[in-house]
């Protein structure tokens, strides 16, 4: 009863307290406006121009930048490649990350859990570029990894993966795996062990418990992790450049080129906006499951 008194106070009165809130909010949101929201709007605007207005050249509104995407299959194919890459990386992260999160949440206990959790999350706090670079050294032919593996294994393997598609996948999985472990761990930890015991006592096999109970209950974590991985990987350009070499041309690298090499900013803006649309569709599709979790 006293509780309702409190909630009524909060809910019944749209007593606007804008005035004291404004000085605290304004600096942060002004900053976000100048550095995020205005730039995104400006990019939308520029993507419909023939030239940058500031370049001094004459400019006009045009749909040509978007037409370029749909007329030349080149960009669409690259976008498809990027989507496939993102899908593969996400799948690998789920396949590796979910079992790892499960072991952390349900098998390991106490200090060892804490320590291993920290070890899994630690790389996540270190420089992403440097971690990708480290694979560039590890994956070189005749490198340390190559030699060690061939010395241990009874058969010959070729780990000269540098500048290949698998190298890009390995580097990206390495970069984004901790996200999946973290999100799955959080949802798995929230599952009460007694639920699993109850299911087992009702005669469910381990596999049934996994399929009917654990995976559905941890789905929000899997989806959150997948979104956190898929979205940036679609737009990745640094990893394919470093690890892929010539095999590393993707949608992200083409956008990068428009801005740093070709200097066709309006086209780059249009390509970025098409990518943003794809990202928004993915986020929109995932949001019902994510909302259910929250």
């Amino acid at each position, binding site marked *: 009863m*006293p509780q309702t*008194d409190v909630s009524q106070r909060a809910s019944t009165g749209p007593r606007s307290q804008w005035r004291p809130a404004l000085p605290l909010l304004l600096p942060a949101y002004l900053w976000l406006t100048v550095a995020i929201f205005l730039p995104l709007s400006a990019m939308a605007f520029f993507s419909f121009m023939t030239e940058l207005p500031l370049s001094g050249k004459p400019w006009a509104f045009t749909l040509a930048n978007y037409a370029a995407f749909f007329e030349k299959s080149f960009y669409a194919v690259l976008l498809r490649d990027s989507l496939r890459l993102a899908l593969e990386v996400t799948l690998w992260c789920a396949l590796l990350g979910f079992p790892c999160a499960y072991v952390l949440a349900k098998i390991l206990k106490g200090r060892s859990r804490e320590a291993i959790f920290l070890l899994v999350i630690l790389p996540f706090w270190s420089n992403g570029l440097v971690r990708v670079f480290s694979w560039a050294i590890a994956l070189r032919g005749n490198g340390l990894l190559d030699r060690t593996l061939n010395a241990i294994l009874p058969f010959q393997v070729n780990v000269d993966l540098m500048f290949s598609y698998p190298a890009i996948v390995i580097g990206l999985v390495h970069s984004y795996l901790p996200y999946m472990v973290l999100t799955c761990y959080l949802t798995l930890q929230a599952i009460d062990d007694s639920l699993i015991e109850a299911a087992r006592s009702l005669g469910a096999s381990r596999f049934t418990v996994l399929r009917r109970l654990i995976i559905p209950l941890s789905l929000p974590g899997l989806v959150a992790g997948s979104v956190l991985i898929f979205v940036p990987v679609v737009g990745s350009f640094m990893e394919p450049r470093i690890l892929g070499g010539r095999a590393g041309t993707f949608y992200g690298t083409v956008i990068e080129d428009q801005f740093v090499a070709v200097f066709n900013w309006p086209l780059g803006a249009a390509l970025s906006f098409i990518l943003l649309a794809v990202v928004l569709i993915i986020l929109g599709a995932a949001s019902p499951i994510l909302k259910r979790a929250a």
Partner: protein
Amino acid sequence: MAGVQVHGVSKTFGLHRALDEVSVDFADGGFYALLGPSGSGKTTLLRMIAGFDFPDAGRIVIGDEGVERVPVERRRIGMVFQNYALFPNMSVADNVAFGLSVRGEAKTDIAREVKQALDLVQLEELGQRRPHQLSGGQRQRVALARAIVTRPRVLLLDEPLSALDKALRVDMQIELKRIQREVGITTIFVTHDQEEALTMSDRIGILRDGRLVQEGPPEEIYNSPASEFAATFLGDANILRGKASEEGIELGDGTVIRCCNAGHNPAANSSCAVRPERIRIEAAESPEASSGENRLKARVTKRIFAGNSTTYFLDRDGQTLKVLVQNSGGESVADGADVMLYWPAESSVLVA
């Protein structure tokens, strides 16, 4: 110390009229309970006296200062919150010292006054503990010490005992009353627990839907409730409805119920309230009954034995009446028995 006067205070939240022209005079040094169901406006009134909310209309006077526009930190009030709101990152002593220290008092004075306050609430040993290391009753005492150490003009208590279990609550009622007397501070106490209001306060104000429906000493409200709501919210009451008559009310079957305040309420339809413990049950027509007593025929439908007393539920013309009989060793009345109920005219009160 100071009295508090609330004059015609109104407050609207959105479409909800939380307080509707409420006026109360809280006497200096008195212990006043604001009683009402949830949503009645009692907490809003308390928060307005504290200064967390400001009235849309009306005046609030503490001592002789009009404070309705003064923010809470300058009102010099003490408040105990429902969940105590002890600062979790400070020790008990630091919690109690907080009000003195934000005022910038000297460290030695603060230490002395904190010790005095903790002595008063009998927690002198626990100054270095953290709030989470205390029991519910101890937290309550710390909250009280913190509120009174600054010598506020008025002490405001927002359902301070509701988080405690029954036995502890009774102890704390006594303790709170002792401390209040010792300090002599004007105290306003919000509660939805009628027993708490009856046992602790000098005066009670009953609120309903943002209005003050009755106000007065506990005995007066209990013995002469002004409305059905007051009669049933504060204590238990049988409500009989009928037409107003010279002597009291006339029930549907022509029976006249005499009431002590007859004639004051000339409304066509009236109700009268009778407390369950005022009614006497007799197995049959009683020769002892004086001619001035009210009498009603009824049938026992259920009995609940509670050791020192028995509650009877009786049926009269489809209405259930309640009678509380002290266990004085006499014979009890069986279920299904037809009985007569008697009570003196001064025990029934016409209510609005």
